[in-house]
């Protein structure tokens, strides 16, 4: 198995040459080793810096980013500069979905919210890869479905749930996507993302903190009681996460159990006779 061309440097000072074994991106990890190998040379490890704009509204999308760590926001804007966050992308997904759908630009924006790393593929290499490998295209299209459910749930939450539930959902979703329990966050950023005034965020954080769910300090939030926080989010959290688990992770397990020779995300020819690599289920939907 060939390693990728460059090393990825992680926050904790370690650096690794990405290979199928140490992938953090759950979509790439769901590919068979052969299929990952076919992509590997084209994947460029890149840092994701807070505030970095990966996709600008109306401008050509030049790459896709398979997120290894960190969080990227998907944001809808108006010409008068009203903005609201519609979705989050972490290591369960990739940024640059329009390219998969044959569209080279979008009115939406992708902004790095929590720093991390990604494996980047140029749009040309990505087009070629999804044309050549039907298994890759099928897997990524399933992710598009899951992401669409996530953004739809955000719309539902924005209209039907109060700020406390929405903020609890948002923090829970971030917790799903970070290593550990703490991440940087300002009330100002969160107020823009949730489409509310900052004092609304400040008081709601105070309420969640008072209930022992989180601890806020110096532009950071620490999740103290995940179970309680998820309960505070109520039904606003869970539908999108269950859908991801059902169509990506559970489907992967089923396919490997049912038929190792035609693994869902393997090339039909390449998979013949090889066992399917199944990564342990990720953190999304964890409840304790």
């Amino acid at each position, binding site marked *: 198995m060939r390693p990728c061309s460059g090393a990825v440097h992680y926050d904790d000072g370690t650096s690794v040459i990405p290979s199928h074994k140490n992938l953090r991106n759950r979509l790439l990890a769901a590919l068979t080793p052969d299929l990952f190998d076919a992509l590997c040379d084209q994947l460029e490890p890149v840092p994701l810096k807070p505030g970095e704009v990966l996709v600008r509204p109306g401008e050509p999308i030049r790459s896709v980013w398979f997120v290894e760590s960190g969080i990227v926001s998907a944001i809808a804007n108006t010409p008068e500069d009203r903005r609201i966050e519609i979705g989050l992308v972490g290591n369960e997904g990739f940024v640059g979905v329009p390219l998969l759908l044959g569209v080279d630009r979008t009115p939406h924006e992708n902004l790095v919210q929590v720093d991390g790393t990604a494996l980047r593929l140029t749009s040309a290499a990505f087009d070629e890869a999804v044309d050549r490998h039907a298994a890759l295209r099928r897997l990524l299209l399933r992710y598009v479905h899951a992401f669409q459910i996530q953004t739809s749930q955000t719309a539902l939450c924005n*209209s039907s749930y109060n700020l406390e539930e929405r903020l609890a959902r948002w923090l829970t979703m971030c917790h799903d996507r970070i290593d550990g329990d703490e991440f940087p966050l300002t009330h100002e950023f969160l107020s823009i993302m949730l489409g509310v005034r900052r004092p609304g965020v400040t008081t709601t954080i105070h309420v969640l903190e008072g209930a022992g769910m989180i601890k806020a300090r110096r532009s950071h939030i620490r999740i103290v009681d995940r179970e309680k926080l998820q309960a505070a989010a109520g039904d606003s959290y869970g539908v999108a996460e269950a859908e991801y688990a059902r169509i990506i992770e559970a489907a992967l397990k089923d396919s490997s159990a049912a038929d190792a020779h035609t693994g869902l995300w393997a090339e039909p020819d390449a998979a013949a006779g090889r066992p399917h690599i199944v990564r342990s289920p990720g953190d999304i939907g964890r409840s304790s």
Partner: protein
Amino acid sequence: MPRYFLNLRDRGTLIEDPEGDEAQDIAEILRIAQATIDDIFGRPETYGDMRRWNRFSFEITDEAGELVLTVPFAGNGNGVG
């Protein structure tokens, strides 16, 4: 531009604003506070229990931590309070 902090007073509790807003002067920060109160009273489905908000006031401080203005929510929204 000076920075002002929109701390929230809820009876005996003061919820501190850790970030603040930039504003030209006290008149501008008052406009920001009133616009915030309008938004909160205008969207009860988002901001939740209005009885709670109705007993809040902004205790606006400057960068030195001095109290410069108190703005009760009640009576400062559009037609509410």
